[in-house]
């Protein structure tokens, strides 16, 4: 357990916070859960960094997929799930293509997102995307600029999707409703306000 000292000054308390990790604080079940959902043997990671080196997100953000693999292996559940970087993976799967241990770091990330989502830890923009899909069938719906561009290229203003065939929207909504996704997105977004 981390040592807590009773500083009166909160800034000082934060500055001098115990930054060690303690094995007693880790959750070994977390690794098992990640491996079960992600269907990849994350504990075989030998931290070579090929994943981060291949990652299109890494050079532009603080997202380090190798560190998430490490945290999963060590069972540092709180740290992994509350880190907003967890949501910066673009799921391009380049790391999975190149991993010399034949692991799927992308799937481990997706598993951790699943576990985070169960605890309602989801960034607002992801929830808004859910609302948009529910409303329009698109995470990024068509807009006027796009429509103009399409026309200029000789295409129909609306693409061959729910934009053109809104009669398929109820089907999409049914899937989202089945998992209670829209309801949950609404609730979490409302709570945050």
């Amino acid at each position, binding site marked *: 357990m981390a040592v807590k000292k009773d500083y009166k000054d909160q800034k000082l308390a934060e500055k001098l916070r115990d930054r060690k990790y303690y094995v007693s604080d880790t959750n070994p079940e977390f690794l098992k859960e990640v491996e079960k959902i992600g269907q990849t043997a994350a504990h075989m990671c*030998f*931290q*070579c*960094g*090929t*994943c*981060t*080196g*291949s*990652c299109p997100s*890494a*050079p532009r953000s603080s997202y*380090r997929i*190798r*560190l998430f693999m490490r945290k999963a292996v060590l069972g540092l559940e709180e740290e992994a799930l509350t880190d907003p970087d967890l949501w910066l993976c673009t799921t391009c799967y380049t790391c999975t293509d*190149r*991993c*010399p*241990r*034949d692991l799927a770091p992308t799937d481990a990330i997706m598993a951790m997102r699943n576990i985070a989502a169960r605890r309602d830890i989801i960034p607002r923009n992801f929830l808004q995307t859910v609302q948009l899909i529910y409303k329009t069938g698109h995470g990024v719906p068509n807009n006027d600029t796009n429509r103009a561009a399409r026309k200029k290229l000789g295409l129909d203003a609306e693409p061959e999707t729910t934009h053109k065939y809104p009669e398929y929207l109820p089907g999409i909504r049914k899937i989202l409703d089945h998992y209670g996704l829209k309801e949950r997105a609404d609730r979490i977004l409302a709570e945050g306000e």
Partner: protein
Amino acid sequence: MAEVKKNEEPRIGVFVCHCGTNIAGSVDIKSVVEYAKKLPNVAVADDYQYMCSTPGQNKIVEAIKEHNLTGIVVAACSPRLHEPTFRGATKMGGLNPFRFEMANIREQNSWVHMHQPEEATAKAKDAIRIAVAKAALLEDLIPKSVPVEKAALVVGGGVGGMQAALDLANAGITTYLVEKNPTIGGRMSQLDKTFPTLDCSQCILTPKMVDVYRNENIKLMTYTEVEAVEGYIGNFDVTLRKKARGVLTTEEAEARGYVGGGCNGCGDCEGVCPVIKPNPFEVGMAPRKAIYIYHPQVSPLLYTVDFDACVKCGLCVDICGDKKAVDLNATDEFVKIKVGTAILATGYDIFPIEQKTEWGYKRYDNVITSLEFERLICASGPTGGHLVRPSDGETPKRIGFVLCAGSRDNTGVGKPYCSRFCCMYSLKHAHQIIEKIPGAVPYIFYMDIRSFGKMYEEFYYRIQNEGAKFIRGRVANILEDPVTKNLHVNAEDTLLGRPVDVEVDLVVLAAAIQPSAETERTRRLFGVSCSQDGWLLEAHPKLNPCGTTTAGVYLAGVCQGPKDIPDTVAQAEGAASAASIPIHLGEVELEPYFAQCIEEKCAGCGMCVNLCPYQALSLVEKDGRKVMQVTEAKCKGCGTCGGFCPGGAIWMQHFATPQIIAQIDAFLLGGEQ
């Protein structure tokens, strides 16, 4: 010769080993011993902490005398481990050593049923009951001795094969050294310097090459491959294919009546030859002619015609003149030799690293392999030792070294093992560029630096001190600047936790190694097993690293697994020592597990003759009819014939039908009686 005792009323002694807690931890020894005492034919049952120890073996010796035993059963580890030990004890007690049977209650019982003591105990009782049933029917057997041919064969003329051949030859044994290339020297002759001492590779190798060439006991056969192998330890009949070389040695020329002729290595033929091909010795970076030598220090100094390239213009024949060394109508010749033992030293090839597409080998000009680097940095190489970029011939200043390129890779494209010497030669490469190119900076991308040998860690220290930059991260990908042909090496510096993009002039891939192309074919000829990655399988990874499961065949060097030069030479000396033992003994004892023909039952149908994988059986005339006859020295006791014989006329010694039936009966019907 020992006296063969006829079977009498069987009296079996059973000895159960605790093996510390290895067996006793899960098997109830006491209950097993009590059970064994009640089995039929058991005269005495006992247990001991370590049966293989001297007091344990003495128990067997004493019990044989005290209880007048006819057979011994030891329930302990695998017979692969201690069968010879307990056979020895049985012999010491005055019994024929083949009156011993082992029940494996460790590897096949206590170790796998560690957490099921009751079931393990029951299984141990079963194993002992079965062994006792066989022991009651065991007979005296006399091992057969066969003479050993006083000659040895070494396959592969790299540093390992050369060392093995020299050791054998210096021990007075005629040694055939067979090399598929036109010269001996192998991979080591392609290297510039050797770590960690920085000796010039050629300088320390060529004296050995000369020794091999000059040694009277070594029959050096270059440009030759093994075609067929027959026989067994002591008596291998080997057919060698002498590939059509097109050039005669002095002796060969004399044999044809051209006294004073034959190739003297003058090189006039090479000068006139109009055909140009890439030289494989220089990894294709330098030209050679259709009539060629690899490099000036070849041994033997003898030219070779590449008949795949030769246009038979005859210019070489003309310029060779009276020496008459060139014969453009040469064909492959087959030579038969007889040897007592053989050593395989077939070495390695570089993994085709272009298969790892993210590093761009063969796609980007300035990505090379470490073997190409060795040739480029070598004074006798295609650039005279001036390291240059293939794209523009400029001297590179920033050089990236990619370690574990294809090694430690479980993706299926690459090799799961560590290739073992890449860390060290990459450190050496870093040193060489710092030494040769002013201002050069090596960037070494590594996962772990494995500097495990004598003075290796100190070498790492030295290179770090010389200014090499170490980046701990495996290279994710390499991109080429299409204008400058510079390379961007992308990786994560895992110690900083940040992605890096290092722009370099040249990238050297420390490519993984794999068994040489001929290894698979050669190992099949000699009946040697390989592990799943293709490296040849030693008899025991720790206690018999030079032997194989085929008696009389030994391994040296990288063909058994990745090794650096010191380890290769050490193993070669070990293999030479092992291979010389049967030769010096003059004869070897074969385990007497031969098939025997029961002539009164044999119908002479001859079906078994064709089934035998070792050509050990034949049909002979006896008393006016045909019967099968076994050449015992060739028989391996596999049982194929015995299992097949429709008349039950083949008796497999030590695995005879009544013995096996008794074992099955004991298992199915047995129990306390």
